[in-house]
């Protein structure tokens, strides 16, 4: 019996082209559905239902602050007032609060602030106000607290 050993070696060749095509399809799919999102952070506020009565523990030597935010008809900020002082912009308010707190740890820990905003004011202005009074970003990137006891005034009626 003659056993043929020569020649007919079948080489199994893998077809690369379709595989590359499918791989590129997958890649394009994932690139298209990839979403770049910014980091999100939170402002904590505690809003207990029970109103703060005269028996609540608050430092009476510290002036309670009221931040009034008035809006124009379109919801943009029209007026920023902290107690009796008016400010043109939120950075001005921020600088004032930084100066007000200074290095007084008692003020830093115990000052209470109430935000009173117009109903139609755009929410981003409230967040900007919170950023201006809540803390300060230092040069090294860390955040120094300014006023931490922040609450909202009761909501107004819808106009």
């Amino acid at each position, binding site marked *: 019996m003659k056993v043929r050993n020569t020649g007919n070696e079948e080489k199994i060749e893998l077809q*690369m082209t379709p*595989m*590359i095509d499918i*791989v*590129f399809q*997958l*890649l394009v799919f*994932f*690139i298209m*559905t*990839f*979403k770049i*999102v*910014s*980091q*999100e*952070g*939170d*402002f*904590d*506020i*505690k*809003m*207990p*239902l029970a109103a703060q009565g005269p028996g609540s523990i608050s430092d009476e030597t510290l002036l309670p602050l009221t931040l009034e*935010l008035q*809006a124009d008809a379109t*919801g943009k900020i029209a007026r920023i007032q902290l107690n009796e002082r008016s400010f043109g912009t939120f950075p001005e308010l921020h600088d004032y609060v930084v100066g007000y707190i200074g290095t007084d740890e008692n003020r830093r820990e115990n000052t209470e602030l109430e935000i009173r*905003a*117009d*109903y*139609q*004011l*755009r*929410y*981003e*202005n*409230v*967040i*900007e106000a*919170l*950023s201006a009074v*809540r*803390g300060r*970003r230092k040069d090294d990137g860390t*955040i120094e607290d300014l006023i931490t006891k922040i609450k*909202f005034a*009761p*909501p*107004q009626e*819808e106009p």
Partner: protein
Amino acid sequence: MRVKKSNSGVLEGDLTPMIDMTFQLIAFFMVLINFEQSEQHEKIQLPDSELAKPAAEKTEYPIILHLTQREEGQPETVILGGEEINIEALGPFLGREKQMYLGQGAKESEITVVIRAHKGARTGKVQNLIAKCQESSLENFKLRAKEDVGNF
């Protein structure tokens, strides 16, 4: 002079490294892609804040409420778990979420409401939302903002 003409002008490159890199890229994007919708919603554009830094600790019992902005005469609506609800009708839904956490052993004081409100929503509506949550005895709130990366 014998000029040897090569058979084909086709460049044959080795494709193996290219395919390897492509697989690497696919694996990269597969890991990064997040199909989870509960924490984010494309309708909501959060306001920017310099102080918005992701919290060091994860909120243990969060109830995430998205608040849209007004559109075409329709007031702001709340999106909770994929459902779009009016603020006034939110009570039972909040109760349901609360019961779920209480059933897991949480205390009422440990439940936090995370409010992801659109930057163009009216402040009054956010306050109404907070008041509605207070009616369900929820007291802890987190107002969510996007990190402000500043101007380039």
